[in-house]
């Protein structure tokens, strides 16, 4: 008879342990993933001045794009120096916004476009912004998994028992330009072929 009570009890304990371990390891993984964003941004900040220098000769006329690129890079460098991941992440998105403009500048100029050094620059820039994007994605996914498990039954019982707090992940500001849709953005894009 005691066997009949013992077996479910052992199963419950094993389950609670596995859930506890999920929460603990998730927290550690989220922390590591946030640091990874910092790593990737540092890599970005190191890479861009090198690339800039190698193509500067070709792109003298594109001064506006260059100023934007330099500004974004400066922001990243100072954010990386501050060590604040949120700041780094914001600076990273600023750089991501410059890239399409740079791309257009390159596409418009066949002479530049055919140059392999510039092609390489564009590849590297895309790759580096992809890396930051995927590093952010990982933080978002891990945080979502953690927070969902923390909220749903029955895992919420374990989360409450051991007081696992909600993970914030990356904070996106609630207000600002990215939350607003301008009139021009709602109209369908015109494409001329």
């Amino acid at each position, binding site marked *: 008879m005691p066997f009949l009570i013992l077996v479910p009890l052992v199963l419950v304990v094993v389950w609670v342990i596995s859930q506890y371990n999920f929460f603990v390891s998730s927290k550690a993984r989220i922390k590591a993933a946030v640091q990874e964003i910092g790593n990737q941004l540092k890599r970005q900040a190191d890479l861009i001045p090198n690339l800039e220098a190698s193509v500067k000769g070709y792109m003298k006329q594109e001064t506006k794009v260059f100023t934007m690129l330099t500004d974004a890079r400066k922001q990243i460098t100072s954010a990386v120096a501050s060590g604040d991941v949120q700041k780094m992440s914001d600076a990273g998105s600023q750089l991501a916004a410059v890239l399409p403009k740079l791309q257009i500048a390159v596409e418009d100029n066949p002479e530049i476009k055919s140059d392999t050094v510039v092609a390489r620059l564009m590849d590297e820039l895309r*790759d580096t912004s*992809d*890396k930051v994007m995927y590093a952010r994605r990982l933080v978002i996914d891990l945080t979502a998994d953690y927070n969902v498990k923390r909220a749903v039954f029955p895992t919420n019982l374990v989360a409450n028992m051991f007081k696992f707090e909600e993970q914030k992940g990356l904070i996106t500001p609630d207000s600002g330009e990215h939350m607003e849709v301008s009139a021009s953005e709602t109209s369908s894009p015109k494409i001329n072929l």
Partner: protein
Amino acid sequence: MQNIYEVAAANKRKSFIIMGLFVVFVTAAVYFLTQAFSLYFGYEAGGLGFVGLALIISGISSIGSYYYSDKIVLAISRARPADKKRDYHFYTVTENLALGAGLPMPKLYVIEDTAMNAFATGRNPEHAVVVATTGLLSYLSRTELEGVIAHELTHIKNYDILLMSIVTVLVGMIALLADMFLRMSYFGGSSRKKEGGGALVLIGFVFALLSPFIGQLIKLAISRRREFVADAGAVAITRQPAGLISALDKIAHDHEPLEAANKATAHLYIENPFKNKIGDARGNFASLFNTHPPVEERIKALQKMA
């Protein structure tokens, strides 16, 4: 319009149903075959000894291929290791997606073949290998390549290679068991044959005849289901169904078979490497024997997520 979480949950459910069916089938086949063995040959519980024997034989061959799958496949397909300079997009895309999926960076290899295909192998994420053909790398854009690689990484993340190895071992075991039964019954049963077990022997006989075939069909159904799971998983990593859709479209329109592929490795590829064209009426029947679902169905499933 379904979101990727719903798709992933539905896929998981269907996967579990097929695998549950498989477990029931294996248990039933083993049960009836062993019962028939012991009745037919006249000794008690002797059938289980045969199960053990079949499991060991089938296991040795498959565990070998499972442990060394990466090395065997690479040797067969004559792949060369990828390097960052030469295969820039292949290398960096995998690096980025592994980062996004939270997986260690897999080893990368390239097959010099103009046919477009890619596959993943290796027993766990730490020993994973992703292989692509030069055809795939040169015809796909970076966004399309991301879709394909994310599909392969999902196979790795879901331990699909392990799953298919286990399924192969079990199907192989049943085939061996059935084969033993049929061969032995050919030589005639023991003279100590018991009375009254006729029906059970008959069931055992039917199972012996049909189960290798049914086992194979269920195995292929599992393989096809895992492709849908991997497609949905790829979208969960890249959030861009369009990339994988246009990649699948391009791969489907490439009719060149991959010379390095063989039946043993077919389920590993992103798309059926043999490129057999299927018709309508016969196609439905023939599709039961495919390791991959038709590309149109995969694209339809992906478009629902877009």
